[in-house]
């Protein structure tokens, strides 16, 4: 399944106002990318070729292969996982107190500057 993102010109933020997300991969590779508001941190990673976010199920919170460790300074703003997501975290590895499934984090203006780290292994 896949969805086509519909961003009409009237509501699409301009480049200058787009929030930025930084992905630090296990091997140290760092990507700072612009994210669309409303897109998930997983989708943003996929559009920007952050390879260590697998997202096998395409974002339906059913595979636990898009795990990220949210930077501790950001965790409070991002918030804790829902009960459903917490259940799925059981299928992930090396889960930390600040771990989230990136398909369940929606980018907002408040998350401009967000830093997440990706694990070495997503289960495949």
């Amino acid at each position: 399944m896949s969805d086509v993102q519909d961003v009409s010109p009237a509501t699409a933020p301009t480049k200058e106002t787009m929030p930025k997300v930084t992905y630090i991969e296990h091997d140290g590779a760092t990507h700072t990318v612009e994210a669309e508001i409303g897109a998930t941190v997983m989708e943003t990673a996929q559009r920007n070729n952050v390879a260590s976010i697998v997202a096998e199920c395409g974002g339906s919170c059913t595979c636990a292969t898009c795990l990220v460790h949210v930077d501790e300074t950001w965790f409070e703003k991002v918030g804790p996982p829902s009960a459903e997501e917490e259940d799925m975290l059981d299928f992930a590895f090396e889960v930390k107190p600040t771990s989230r499934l990136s398909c369940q984090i929606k980018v907002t203006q408040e998350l401009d500057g967000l830093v997440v780290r990706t694990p070495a292994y997503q289960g495949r």
Partner: protein
Amino acid sequence: MSETIKTDVVIIGAGPVGLFAVFELGLLDIKAHLIDILDKVGGQCAELYPEKPIYDIPGIPFVTGHGLTEALMEQIKPFNPTFHLNEMVTTLEKIGDPLFRVGTDRGKIFEAKVVVIGAGGGSFQPKRPPIPGIEPYENKSVHYAVRKMDAFRDKRLLIVGGGDSALDWTLNLQPIAKRLTLVHRRDEFRGAPDSVNKMRALVAAGDMDLKIGQVTVLEGADGQLAAAAIKGKDAVERVECDAMLPFFGLTMKLGPVADWGLKMDDELIPVDTAAFETNIPGIFAIGDINTYPGKLKLILSGFHEGALMAQKAYHYVYPDKRLVFQYTTSSTSLQKKLGVA
């Protein structure tokens, strides 16, 4: 050695696209056997999102993965396909023009004029926990499935996970194990509440152990586990064990498809868009596993691919017959096949 099963078409993968292919083939009097590694039909719809909504099936505004699978099973009922579940296709060889021999990990052999690969993202296989040095223990004392319960009799078992598989096997194996320890990363379980209660009662009665933490180190030699280190919140605990059963769900791996001599493009099978046939005539690939210019990984695309595949497959199954295109709305002959005329 089992008898060879002879059929028109072997479909590898019983996901939505493989199921609908049965319909399109059936209308053309082509019989099919389906083989799937899962213990149920429906593929990703059944394994990944049985309860999740799908909004983009034409004519069906809303359906769940489970609902779509059920509906497809109803739709293909008149064609009486044969299912081989819990079974992985391991070998595929060309033995005629076209004729193929298909072998499975359960030792079944099929001969078919046409093979349709509808394997989606590959085969679902258990997730392997990233414990350093786990490989030599796998299938010796670390098992991702229980095929014979008796293999665990009088053993000290470590079961890892918090879902229904982990809980069910805990309850099933606890009576015959020497000692059973369940390890889970948190003191909450998403499995069925009844199973959770039964497990907690066993722990309270002292008949099994529950440890909260993650397995980080394995000890042992020559594939035989001796102990595991469990890292809890504050401390690391060593638990002696003879076998470990991790249950972390399934992940899709391409699997043996890569070994069948098919042209591959980054884990996908390139096909033509007239019949969705691979570089080997008689072998087709439909659904998420194929690639062609403009490919969309949508269930509806897979349905279309199956319909066109069936037209070409007809010529391999019935080389001397002419195919007349017909509609189910008006053709008495098709309606007879569907059991409605």
